């Protein structure tokens, strides 16, 4: 069975990290399986964890009164789910639900925050990499907001 450290090297967000940092990060993680429909996180709950999807798909959802749960994004293999663990007040902004059976690595965010405080180099590198994830998601969200499919040229 492969170690979490080995698995992390194949995840784009963690690939190429110094071996000692990978070891520190892996020390805060454990493997877990989620059944279809099971929640990885709930909006408003304390964000003490984040996830790396190894297999399956996770939906980020938000409840809208009268409209039910709206899926705003799905994330697949290799994706990071959650960055609220990095920023106060450390609360989830959305629900995260397994669309199908999901195998993920669950990380203890509070544990990792402590390690980042102790090792500023690790903290900077993780912040830089999570900022890249956030930038990608922000750009994708902007495209979604453009509603490009809804405004054809009249003719």
């Amino acid at each position, binding site marked *: 069975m492969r170690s979490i450290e080995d698995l992390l090297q194949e995840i784009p967000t963690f690939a190429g990290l110094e071996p000692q940092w990978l070891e520190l990060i892996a020390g805060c993680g454990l493997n877990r399986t989620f059944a279809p429909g099971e929640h990885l996180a709930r909006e408003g709950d304390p964000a003490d964890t984040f996830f790396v999807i190894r297999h399956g798909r996770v939906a980020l959802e938000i409840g809208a009164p009268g409209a039910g749960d709206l899926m705003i994004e*799905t994330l697949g293999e290799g994706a990071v789910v959650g960055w609220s663990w990095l920023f106060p007040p450390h609360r989830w902004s959305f629900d995260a639900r397994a669309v199908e059976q999901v195998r993920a690595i669950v990380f203890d965010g509070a544990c990792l925050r402590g390690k980042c405080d102790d090792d500023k180099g690790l903290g900077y590198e993780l912040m830089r990499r999570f900022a890249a994830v956030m930038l990608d998601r922000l750009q994708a969200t902007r495209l979604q907001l453009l509603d490009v499919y*809804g405004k*054809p040229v009249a003719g």
Partner: protein
Amino acid sequence: MANRSPAETDPTASAVASPGAARAPMTPRPFRVLARRQETADTWTLTLEPADGAPAPRFEPGQFNMLYAFGVGEAPISISGDPDADGPLEHTVRAVGPVSTAICRAEPGTELGLRGPFGSSWPLAAAAGRHVVIVAGGLGLAPVRPALLAALARRESLAGLVLLCGGRSPGELLYADQMVGWGQDPRLELGVTVDAAERGWSGHVGVVTTLIGAAPFDPARAVAFVVGPEVMMRFTAQALLDRGVDPADIHLSLERNMKCAVTQCGRCQFGPTFACREGPVMSLAAIGRFFGVREL
């Protein structure tokens, strides 16, 4: 151009000479609506046969016709049917203005005018032995559907075939029944994503560019056909470039306001080209310097 199709800058992908277009390019030929199928809330697929009893014109995947709603006006509409099938022509039309609305409302038996086919085509012949990656957004699936059907018919000559579709919501995806079949077809790798969905949707949610990174194709051997709103095509082209696809192998279908379709009116001029003649399918290498230029 409202519901139209693509052009081609690839000089090897020449436009098909249409007998009708060659004889009287500005004179519509009467066609009769055989069938009308609703695709989404505002989009219909019409099956048209010549009213004069002569055969329907042959076309190449990616070409378009000018459809005339008599007494209302004319609009460029992509041909969305199977290019290998003899017989009636299919057009998928979204009701967005007076002309396209009149065409969408045409019941079986109604006569419409038709000029064409016009424009260039997707370079399928150049795709032999390669991975064909089709990226379609919204109504863009209609102009590229003939290429997909032709590619499926020639699948053994291709290294791979990928279709990535993006839409606004699950209810606004075209060809829903056929999409189910494509999802089960081992010859095709299908990815479908929508901008927003309610719980119960089992596909992806997010912009279509997010599917490109993990799509199963070799960028060094890929030829990409991209069609959709121009913003979507711009970001898709960048994602394909980031993946390593050569600009000369990225083909786009330009959305332009075609009026005459025979380069006389200049309405579809795009830099030094006309979308109705060099286009609508053009390669990124050919038009990249104009792509994204505002007011062009």
